[in-house]
């Protein structure tokens, strides 16, 4: 049984949100997908979800308008439950090695995924979560 309640996407590029959404829908049409282009809005949404909302997947772009994905991660750390309730993946077009390294170093981040996001990436995420002892 796939233990995923909802998928939150944060990317200032709507086209990217579209591509991710379509790739997930294609294999799992029933999953709840919540896309954001503004970090502030996404942050407010996550805060609102609270400690009770489990099994969330967060797909986060690093290059946000007026905001950096790293800054957002710092903001998320304020929620004590974030690590328990969220599987966070970085989705970025950047191939810069320092971005990979920073993702690896971050405790909240599961993995760094370079764009384009394909169905294969989605399958890997599902396998990750299935294998995970978390949740």
């Amino acid at each position, binding site marked *: 049984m796939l233990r995923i309640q909802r998928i939150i996407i944060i990317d200032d590029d709507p086209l990217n949100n579209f591509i991710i959404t379509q790739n997930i829908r294609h294999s799992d049409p029933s999953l709840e997908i919540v896309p954001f282009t503004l970090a502030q809005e996404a942050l407010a949404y996550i805060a609102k979800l609270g400690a009770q909302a489990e099994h969330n997947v967060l797909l986060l772009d690093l*290059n946000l308008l*007026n905001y950096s994905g790293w800054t957002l991660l710092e903001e998320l750390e304020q929620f004590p439950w974030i690590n328990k309730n969220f599987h966070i993946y970085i989705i970025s077009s950047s191939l*810069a090695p320092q971005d990979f390294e920073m993702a690896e170093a971050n405790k909240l981040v599961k993995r760094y995924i370079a*764009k384009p*996001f394909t169905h294969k990436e989605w399958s890997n995420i599902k396998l990750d979560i299935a294998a995970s002892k978390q949740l």
Partner: protein
Amino acid sequence: MNKLLEGQLAKYFNGNLPGDLAQLFSEISNTYDHYEKKHKILERTAEISENELSALNNRLLKESNELTVVNSRLKNLFESIDSAFFSIDFNTNCLLQVSPGWKKIYGSDTSDFYVNPNLWKEVVVEDDKHVLDEYEACVLKGQLFACEYRIISADGKTRWVETKLTPTFDGKNLRIDGFTTDISIRKEITKRIEESETRFRRLIENSYDGIALLDKSRKLIYVSNSVKRILGYTSADMGNNNLFDYIHAEDAENVSAILDSISKQAGSTTELVCRTKNKDGEWRWINSYVTNMLHENGIGAIVFNFKDISLKVEMQTALEFDRKNRDALINSTKDLMWSIDDRMCLVTANDAFINAVKSSGGISVKPGDHLLDHNFFPPRVVDKWKKRYEKVLKGKAFIVEEYSASPVEAWAEISFNPMIENGRIIGASCFSHDITEKKKVSEYVLKSEQMMAEAQRISHMGSWECRFNKAEKVDNNSMQWSDEIFRIYGYNPGQLKVSYKNFFNLVHHEDLYRVKSTLQDAFRYKKPCVMEYRIIRPDKVERWIRTTADMICDLQTGKLTKMIGTAHDITERKQLEEERQKITNDLIQRNKDLEQFAYIISHNLRAPVANILGLSSLIEKKNLAKEVKEECFKGLTKSTRLLDQIIMDLNHILQVKRQISERKTQIKFRTIVHNITQSIASIIEKEQVIINTDFSEVSEIYTVKDYLYSIFYNLISNSIKYRQHGVKPVISISTKKSDDNHVFITFKDNSQGIDMEKYGDKVFGLYKRFHLDVEGKGIGLFMVKTQVESLGGNISIASEVNKGTEITIKLLKNVIQYKEHNVTNTTHYNHR
């Protein structure tokens, strides 16, 4: 009778009769003996025979005749003898007989004596009469009486006579036989001998030289009074001592040999010098003339006639020592010493001179040789020396320096000095001193000084030194500068009064404290130090100087004695250093930019590519809804366009970075602002933008026009774009002069502002956008920064949310002036 006569005569002649007289007496005696013998024989044989008697008678007659002859010969002798012989009957005082010799002595006839038997006593001179006082008492005792006295003879002459009176008593009468001999000659001789001896004594007693007499056994039998003065001994001190008690052991053998030698030959004399001990025990040098007078009557000794020559010996020794010393001195030097007489002939020379002449001319000169009158030297050399000798012989003292290239390079300093005696030049003394080493050293020093000066001039490095006093304080006036330091400080050598205090007056006031404290530390720790500071030269040009200072301490006390150091104009190096620092900073910035550029490419450029790839893979999927597919195609188009736009932006940016060498022109700020307001007039009017400008301080700039326009355009449009809602945009643009040929251009507005705390480091980044409600690519400020930096300037920002933003750009104002500065420098160096 003959016996009596013989006895009297023998007494007269002191027991030894002269030869002829003895023979005579012997004959007489024999004849008498023979007669008596014959007579006794005759008496015994009288009765023997008549014949025999007759024969005997004849013989007797013959013998009687012989006796008569003898008697006659004896009478002749008695009468012919020069002495007076007389006999007196003592009792009757009657003259019995007198020999004819009376007249020869007493001058009167014998008859006078017969008449007056006292005559022999009466003629005695009054002064001598006393000698006869004892005569009578003596003869009455039967003793012989002899005396010597003077008589006045009948002819009035005084003569010395000796009279011997012999008493003969025959039982009845006392007969006195007198025998008087003229002894005037003997007396005269004795007197003369006595006088001579007295004179001799007196002579040797008063002699200045010491005199000593030595007997055969070498005992001192006499020493003169003067010995006391010479050796301190009195005659009592030395008397009968052995000569060798006083002779130095080392000289004894020689003295002994000399004495042996002269003893062999009477009258020989030799000179002798030996050391003799004086009374104080000191050894004195004594010179003696030793004469063998052993054979001389009244002397009978070896005579030493001596004097003390110790002083002379000492002086001679000293002189000899001096001479040897002088010889050693003049011959131990390599310097040549010689003297010439007024004919240029050699008088004296040391070995060095002789050898030098020999090695150069091949001749051995000796005193008396003419130094130039030969063909051993080339005429040129002879000429040269002749002139020198002539000059000195005219009385001129001088020094010449002589150089010879072969066999080895050598220099000599030759001094010539005239020798003047009684106002006349009698010659000249010459002294040649080898100064090759000195010359080489001084040439080397001169050369190295020149090289040093040249090196300093070429390297623009000067040297200096300064002394410390005993309290380790710098002696203000002891500072010395090399010529190059003057030039470094912009002065002609010696133009400035150099002192420690003056040095500080030259240092730029901003660097003064640093320089002073560096020096103080160096003094305190006695360690070398390096100072880099600025000076303002008299021509108002600022230069950078690097000065080193080494502290020199006294080895014993450890106290600072002086400091020495160098000064070097490092302006060019400093400029290069600054330039290099700037280039380094630029490169670091450029590198950061490039990194950022790469990052931007990986993010911004890849973003649309990733989208295209993502959309493409979506399209490939089967059973895709039609509207999704359409959305995909729209996305593809959008992404492709975005990709193109980004590439165009990048191209634009890259072009800016390449346009550094764009031609620069003189641009008025007013014109730029005017052009921009014209191009965006509609927006300005619509938003009621107010632009205030103040270009009074700096009105124009020499720069790339397109860049300046772009900078102004972006900043003005940003101010309008990010205006606060409901507030009229107010933009103030002003210029300000900097003290280093730059201009500050300030853009101040009342826009929304940026949270500098949050985004401070990102405001000038590419594709950075901070305002979500306003359309923008986030390229404006990135472009402004790129262009400002391309012009060699920099940009800074101050902003506050809802208050406004102030952007300040610093640009180089006037490049022409910078070039002029360089020209000045070049001119300066050409002067050196």
